[in-house]
């Protein structure tokens, strides 16, 4: 608030920036707006500061201590352990590292399964619902979106029921003579199962070469397991839940597709697939980037389903960093380690999304910007006369 005082008296303080006609030109308005402006944003700043900025700073401190949850984390009895928590998780050796690596492995398979499925699924649904000859499109649009607004707890309960050993899914598979697994209690990895199916190995007696080579605290055999059957069931559930939201984003983009372009392609004799491949998909590029980015951010944070359905089991195959961090802190009172996991996850998500934005950036756009910059440089070099 005190900063506003300086700009009031002179009146010239605003002049250089006063290009906008209208707002705040009358005398008296600027300082009133200044006070009101700060007053209006104060509640938001206080709450975000108190429950977001302060917590992050506190947790950063805790992640360097061995605080056990009793008393204040700032009291003298709490030991400062430096980077021990981080080292235990990343370098090991020990159970902490093993569990953390298992959670990373699980979530890695989870992400590379869920993100492509939900992106392609959402695009497919959007293209179908966007078929303009359809009747009742609004109904289908709503039906596909509805799971996105329902509590993850309610949905988890339904899926627990659908995927029990003798549940609806297995009865349905039984009609085709398929003997379904016990889904949420089945820890076998998909890649392990495929390998066994191909006769490469036996799950009960893993090949010694893979089982004895340990990388980052985990045998290679464990790393290459693939998502467990239990995790796969959760993945199906999450894809089912989130596809609707992303479908709506694709529909929005499809609705903005200029019809002239598509009709021109039609006149040129492009068939339906060519039109989709060469006209629609390039137009959707920014939306695809957004959907994939949001997908990666969301999937790395998966927590609710683990809390409600599996608690990390069976055999830790649905353990995720978010759940592990919760378990370490609230379950085992290892708050330093829990906080450290949260920060590693934070960095991981940040790095992944930055990397992704860089890899998937619009290359045409980047090239155009480069060309513009070059042109401006040349113009500057040639002087103002060259522009005319």
């Amino acid at each position, binding site marked *: 608030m005190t900063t506003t005082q300086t700009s009031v008296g002179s009146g010239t303080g605003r002049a250089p920036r006063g290009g906008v006609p209208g707002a705040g030109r009358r005398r008296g308005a600027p300082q009133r707006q200044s006070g009101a402006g700060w007053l209006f944003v104060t509640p938001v700043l206080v709450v975000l500061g108190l429950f977001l900025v302060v917590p*992050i700073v506190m947790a950063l401190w805790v992640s360097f201590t061995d605080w056990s949850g009793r008393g204040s984390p700032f009291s003298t009895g709490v030991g400062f352990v430096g980077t021990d928590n981080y080292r235990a998780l990343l370098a090991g050796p020990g159970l902490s590292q093993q569990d953390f690596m298992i959670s990373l492995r699980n979530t890695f398979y989870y992400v590379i399964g869920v993100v492509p499925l939900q992106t392609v699924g959402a695009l497919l649904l959007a293209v179908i619902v966007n078929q303009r000859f359809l009747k009742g499109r609004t109904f289908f649009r709503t039906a596909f979106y509805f799971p996105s607004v329902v*509590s993850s*707890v309610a949905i988890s309960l339904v899926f627990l029921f659908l995927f029990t050993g003798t549940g609806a899914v297995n009865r349905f598979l039984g009609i085709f003579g398929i003997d379904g697994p016990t889904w949420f209690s089945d820890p076998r990895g998909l890649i392990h199962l495929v390998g066994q199916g191909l006769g490469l190995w036996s799950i009960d007696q893993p090949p010694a070469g893979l089982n004895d080579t340990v990388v980052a605290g985990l045998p290679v055999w464990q790393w290459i397991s693939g998502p467990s059957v239990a995790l796969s069931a959760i993945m199906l559930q999450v894809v089912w839940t989130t596809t609707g939201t992303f479908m709506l984003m694709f529909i929005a983009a499809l609705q903005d597709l200029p019809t002239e372009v598509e009709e021109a392609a039609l006149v040129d004799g492009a068939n339906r697939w060519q039109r989709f491949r060469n006209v629609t998909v390039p137009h959707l590029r920014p939306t695809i980037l957004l959907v994939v980015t949001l997908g990666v951010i969301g999937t790395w944070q998966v927590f609710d389903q683990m809390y409600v359905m599996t608690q990390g089991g069976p055999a830790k195959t649905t353990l995720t960093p978010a759940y592990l961090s919760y378990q370490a802190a609230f379950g085992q009172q290892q708050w330093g380690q829990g906080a450290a996991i949260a920060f590693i996850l934070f960095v991981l998500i940040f790095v992944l999304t930055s990397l992704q934005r860089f890899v998937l950036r619009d290359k045409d756009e980047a090239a155009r910007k480069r060309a513009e910059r070059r042109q401006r440089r040349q113009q500057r070099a040639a002087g103002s006369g060259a522009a005319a």
Partner: protein
Amino acid sequence: MSDLAPTDSVAPEARARAEAELMRPMRAGTAAERSGGRGRKLAVYLALVVFAVIYIYPFVVQLSTSLKTNGDAVGRPLGLVPNPVTTEAFRRLAETDFPLWFTNSVVVTVCVTVGRVFFNSLAGYALARLRFRGREAVFTAILAVLAVPGIVLLIPKFLVLNYLGIYNTYPALILPLLVDAAGVFIMKQFFETIPASVEEAARIDGAGTFRIFWSIVLPMARPAVITLTILSFQGSWNELAHFIIAADDPRLYTLTRGVASLTSGGLGSGNQFPITMAAGLLMTIPTALVFVLFQRYFTQGANAGAEKG
């Protein structure tokens, strides 16, 4: 779904976009799109029906199982007609703490929704229209907050709630959810589309800043306010992670926390599928009502605005 602790796999800004899209009428077809043979149309309809079944079936199972006996639910999981029809599950559910959880959820949701709509609008308006020193910095800070993945804040938030001595209280459930950066962003975007001339006229008449905001600008922002109401309602009603770390007193359980506890032995031995399905159904009904009612309200509002020009 709040940016402070998303329980969901979808970010709030994505949800807002989706929600806005849902309210937009779809464009009519072009010649290119209407072309195509009968076979293709049939294939599209077939695909649509298959997907519709996949998306609606779980909810039908939820409804029908909630009216089954436990034996019927386990014995005939594919049967959609309960035999016999019984409301036993709902009666058993009423004997649990379910009514308490429901009340808690209503209290928290109402507080959070009212708070978010009011405070987010205030801040959004200030950032869109009021000129004050540091405005850019505040907006940048809010954008930065949006980038923080909510799930990493679980332990941090517990630390602060504990430190402030409000762990295991209603304020702990409500206060951290009371504003959200995504909501501020949505409101700011919308206020920027409202012509400034309206406010200018009122300002000449001598109306104060808050009065202009409250009686002139906010009513004009009805579509954004409704979007924010829906998002806030869904966000707080479906929130789970924050409620887990903010309290462990069973008297402070909300629906999500309480119903989740039903699966972990809260009902005694054996699976009690009809009861958990009934619980899920009851917690879904308010969501569905808000979803349908507000959407209709919004559509009418949007049309009324268009008529006035």
